[in-house]
């Protein structure tokens, strides 16, 4: 009895030892970074004489028109990018699931841009859809426009088309491979049964395919939403300066010569973290449900 107890004690100790380095590193770097940012967002920084925490920074940003339009723009970009990526990814997965000739090559090309950094995609998109880009040249060649300024502004534009296009380009394969993996592992048997029982094509999709891939695709979509909400380099290259997206605005406030703006930057960082925390909760709920099924 006592040896069994000590066995369990030893086992626990072993697990703790295996986990300790990773947990310590993540707590110090990740939690430490968040806590340090939170403290500074409260205007608490004794080293430079700020020793009474307050909520001034939050009050300041939530009454600032630039911050509010930036928040709106960022939510809009994240929402539209996630929606378009999810719909296209599911369509792409349905297209690529059948083992036709050449599918393997197509799948490989499909995965290729998972390995391409966002920044490369953004630069490529800049050369593709800016007013003097390749698409604009093509439009001139076809006689649709006669000079670059007639081409619609898709970069640094109010609707953030270039940013959204880059995200969709990058995230369709990300969600797509997940949807494809589920579809291939489940096979088409359930759908065949539904069809042979008289379900229409869309009915079999709506009531059989969608519930099967929903949780997996849903979790991936939440990751994409949190990512596109908080990503920096794509809007940094392709976005407008006013309003800029929230991460860009936070970075600019942080690098401002006026040190008072630093607490504003930290408050914005906390808003970004809080919104992505909502996405994490949704993600864990989704993936649990997925595992249960």
């Amino acid at each position, binding site marked *: 009895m006592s040896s069994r107890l000590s066995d369990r004690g030893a086992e626990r100790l072993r697990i703790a030892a295996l986990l300790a380095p990773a947990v310590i590193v993540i707590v110090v770097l990740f939690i430490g*970074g968040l806590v340090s940012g939170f403290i500074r967002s409260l205007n608490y920084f004794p080293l430079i004489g700020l020793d009474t925490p307050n909520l001034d920074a939050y009050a300041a940003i939530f009454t600032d028109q630039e911050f509010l339009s930036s928040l709106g723009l960022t939510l809009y970009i994240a929402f539209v990018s996630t929606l378009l990526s999810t719909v296209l990814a599911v369509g792409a997965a349905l297209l690529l699931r059948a083992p036709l000739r050449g599918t393997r090559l197509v799948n490989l090309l499909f995965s290729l841009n998972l390995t391409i950094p966002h920044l490369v995609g953004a630069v490529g998109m800049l050369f593709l859809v800016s007013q003097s880009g390749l698409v604009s040249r093509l439009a001139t060649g076809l006689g649709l426009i006669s000079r*670059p300024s007639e081409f619609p502004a898709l970069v640094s534009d109010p609707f953030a088309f270039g940013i959204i296009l880059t995200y969709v380009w990058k995230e369709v394969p990300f969600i797509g491979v997940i949807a494809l993996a589920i579809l291939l592992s489940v096979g088409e048997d359930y759908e065949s049964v539904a069809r042979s029982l008289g379900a229409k094509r869309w009915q079999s999709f709506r009531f059989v395919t969608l519930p099967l891939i929903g949780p997996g695709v849903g979790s991936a979509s939440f990751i994409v939403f949190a990512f596109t909400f908080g990503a920096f380099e794509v809007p*940094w290259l392709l976005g407008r300066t006013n309003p800029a997206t929230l991460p860009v605005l936070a970075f600019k406030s942080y690098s401002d010569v006026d040190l008072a703006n630093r607490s504003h930057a930290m408050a914005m960082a906390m808003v970004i973290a809080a919104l992505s925390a909502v996405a994490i909760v949704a993600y864990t709920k989704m993936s649990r449900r997925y595992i249960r099924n």
Partner: protein
Amino acid sequence: MSLNAQFAFDVGPDHTSPVATTKGRRPVLRWAAIVGLLAFLVAPMIPLIFWSFAFRWNYPDLLPSEYSLRAWKAVASPTNNVLLATWNSSVIAVVVTVLSIAIGVPAGRALGLHKFRGKRLVELLIVAPIIVPTLAVALGMHTLFIRYGLSNSLLGVSVVHLIPALPYMTLVMSGVFANYDAAFESQARSLGASPLKTQWYVTFPAIRPGLVVGALFTFLISWSEYVLTLLIGGGQVVTLPLLLFNFARSGDNAIAGALAVVFVVPGVLVLLLTSKHLSTGHAAMGGTGT
């Protein structure tokens, strides 16, 4: 548990099921859609490659009117800081990968093989840095790094890259260990193998495929990182993405194109190396999607 772990090692393509529902219908439309999809995915790469060889490419020419190797010579020139940036990017990514293996493999083992109190909390702690945008963490981190003298240095940048890299490695390894049978280890031990020998001859060969895939993609996560390097490196630590951004912003399209191609090469190599285990590679890649 996690998406990566979930799909990385459970799911193999199953090509045996009947495909009557999709095969017979309008194959021309299907192929048109597939070609359209691929064209969209490849499109941004095309101007990058052409720009890297362009000497003169005026509007509205569809192709450069004159080609040259100017950009490639500039990229390869030792007087330029491209070589330094490539070196920095590589050193940082290797350090990050080695640290992530050393710290992430044991943690992945604990999560994949054992049940314990507080497991959910630990899992949440490890998933969180993947989802919370790095910028939100990095601004607060920067203050601490300045205080402890870690800012503006290769070491500081490598340490901060652990924020996205270590959780990814841990999740992949937890998926690997979830499908690993630890009973082989006790058999080896009872046959007289030392703990070290058991690790080397039993554990390591069993986890090697997943470990290699995880390590390669961890390398890519660090290699692609932009804003953490910009902030913590303070402009003193120049890596490839920082240079690429500056050339793209300043309008030197030819050099930006060449840099973009250089920047993409490791990822393409990783894809080709891992494409043999397509199902493994596919899913593990999920981590770089974000």
